[in-house]
């Protein structure tokens, strides 16, 4: 190609897997023409640990700590998703108090995860101060996690049928104080970037995806809502105590990086609102259901009432009925900070899951990168990766 006497050649650039702006081990092969991206090919799998295969060799209780490692920035929500799925399978009714504690903890995890997101996303685009502010506030939350669960990141706190231990008043007071002040802190982050000209130039109109395309690409969470689609698992298929608390789901309009950013900033406030209500409404009572799975689980199968299985067979095959009653399956999803995190569990007559499938939002979101990046500038790749908020541990499982 000729351009005022300068010859421009196509250039292939390898971005990652060790690149600070890819938020983990994501490798992008970019075919460039000047500064325009002609083609973008993501390569994933560097963090593949075979969680789905491993869980087939572990009992249900042993699989729980594995789910911590799926998305290590919001392990609480992962545990919750797994527990919700097993509870649905066994038909366990979780006590009210445990439901509220879980909801509260899940929202804390959401704030934590979004704080890491705003920190790294702003850092990538060039706003260093936000990183320091966000990490400071995240530290407080992690300390509170430690108070209750004994761990900062991989908590393994929810249990099938409830939670591991009760929360005390000292923790609740500390959390309440934090949450009271938190919306002010979100405003603080916003004063740094919301009307910053560099920020607006880098995010407005970048990485646009329309509502219809977003649905077709299977996006979920704030990434989908930035395009103006109202879909939130917490509202559509409520689990735990989400039907007992009052909150709104922020929805964007243009589907660009800026709208996705706005959605998450508004979610901070909604999460704070949910936590506040949970503390105020927290009922007394047990924290573990009577028929919950115990930690020292004997090698016995799950108790599932086979009478709940309704089926109709339209072919003549006598073995099919046995087959249907042997393999019980369930799909349950929760709204993780990144989107819909689904657990599809097939249970047979043994103490181990026959198949555990993790539907990871990051996996789907990483797949949409070529669509967002092709035709845009190299610098926009960084903004796009930040705005879809992927965690590679969850992407590769």
């Amino acid at each position, binding site marked *: 190609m000729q351009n005022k006497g300068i010859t421009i050649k196509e250039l292939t650039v390898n971005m990652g897997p060790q690149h600070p702006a890819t938020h983990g081990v994501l490798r992008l092969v970019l075919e460039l023409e000047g500064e325009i991206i002609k083609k973008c090919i993501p390569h*994933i*799998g560097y963090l*593949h640990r*075979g969680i*789905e*295969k*491993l869980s*087939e*060799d572990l009992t249900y209780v042993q699989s729980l700590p594995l789910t911590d490692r799926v998305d290590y920035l919001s392990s609480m929500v992962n545990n919750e998703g797994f527990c919700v799925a097993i509870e*649905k*399978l066994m*038909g366990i009714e979780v006590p009210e108090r445990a439901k509220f504690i879980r909801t509260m903890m899940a929202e804390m995890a959401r704030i934590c995860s979004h704080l890491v997101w705003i920190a790294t996303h702003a850092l990538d685009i060039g706003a260093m101060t936000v990183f320091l502010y966000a990490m400071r506030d995240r530290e407080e939350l992690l300390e509170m996690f430690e108070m209750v669960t004994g761990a900062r990141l991989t908590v393994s706190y929810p249990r099938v049928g409830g939670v591991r231990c009760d929360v005390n008043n000292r923790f609740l007071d500390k959390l309440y104080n934090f949450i009271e002040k938190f919306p002010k802190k979100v405003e603080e982050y916003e004063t740094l970037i919301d009307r910053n000209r560099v920020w607006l130039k880098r995010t407005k109109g970048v990485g646009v995806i329309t509502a219809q*395309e977003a*649905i*077709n*690409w*299977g996006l979920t969470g704030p990434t989908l809502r930035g395009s103006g*689609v*109202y*879909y939130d698992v917490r509202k*559509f*298929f409520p689990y735990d105590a989400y039907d007992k608390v009052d909150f709104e789901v922020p929805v964007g309009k243009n589907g660009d990086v800026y709208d996705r950013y706005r959605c998450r900033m508004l979610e901070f406030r909604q999460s704070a609102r949910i936590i506040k209500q949970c503390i105020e409404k927290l009922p007394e009572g047990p924290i573990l259901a009577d028929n919950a799975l115990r930690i020292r689980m004997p090698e016995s199968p799950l108790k599932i009432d086979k009478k*709940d*299985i*309704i*089926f*109709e*067979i*339209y*072919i003549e095959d006598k*073995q*099919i009925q046995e*087959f*249907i009653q*042997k*393999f*019980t*399956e*369930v*799909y349950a*999803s929760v709204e993780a900070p990144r989107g*819909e995190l*689904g657990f*599809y569990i*097939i249970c047979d007559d043994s103490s181990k899951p*026959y*198949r555990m*499938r993790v*539907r990871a939002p990051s*996996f*789907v979101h*990483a*797949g*949409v990168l070529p*669509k967002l990046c092709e035709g845009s500038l190299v610098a926009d790749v960084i903004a796009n990766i930040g705005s879809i908020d992927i965690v590679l541990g969850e992407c*590769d*499982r």
Partner: protein
Amino acid sequence: MNPAEIVKKIRERFPKEVLWFVCFRDECSIVVTKEKIKEILRYLKNTPGLEFDYLVDLTAVDYLGFREPRFDVVYHLMSIKHRHRIRVKAQVPEHGCCIDSVTDLWATANWFERECFDMFGIHFKGHPDLRRILMPEDWKGFPLRKDYPVKSDLGDKEWETYKELKESAKAWKENAE
């Protein structure tokens, strides 16, 4: 629309293809033959009243030793407009392990199908770019199949790239000495 009505609608349209359906905890799964899977899914996506515009998940399950045909390809569908879900399962045998790709119905199926191919070795006819996604490209075997061991001494079956790496490390060490 409740699951039973959806099943009824599909059965009216595709009487031969639907083999059985199971309802458990308000979740419905329909088991169908693989031949017309794309038409069934297109019908589910485009029919007014159903409008399953959102492919939540696509995966496979291996029922080795429990059933013939061996695999199930599982589609989880949801409609954002009507807020209902359904699970469609298509049976795929071990020999001629292939099924039609649905990438032109839902773009998200692209990576899901690649993962499914990577883990189970199921071929998706009409997929634009069917390569391994999570495992290395020169990997042998399909990890999520039931006859693939969780733990084993691989011996000669060690991953080629790793063998090469070990040999080059050994050579480097000998050189250094």
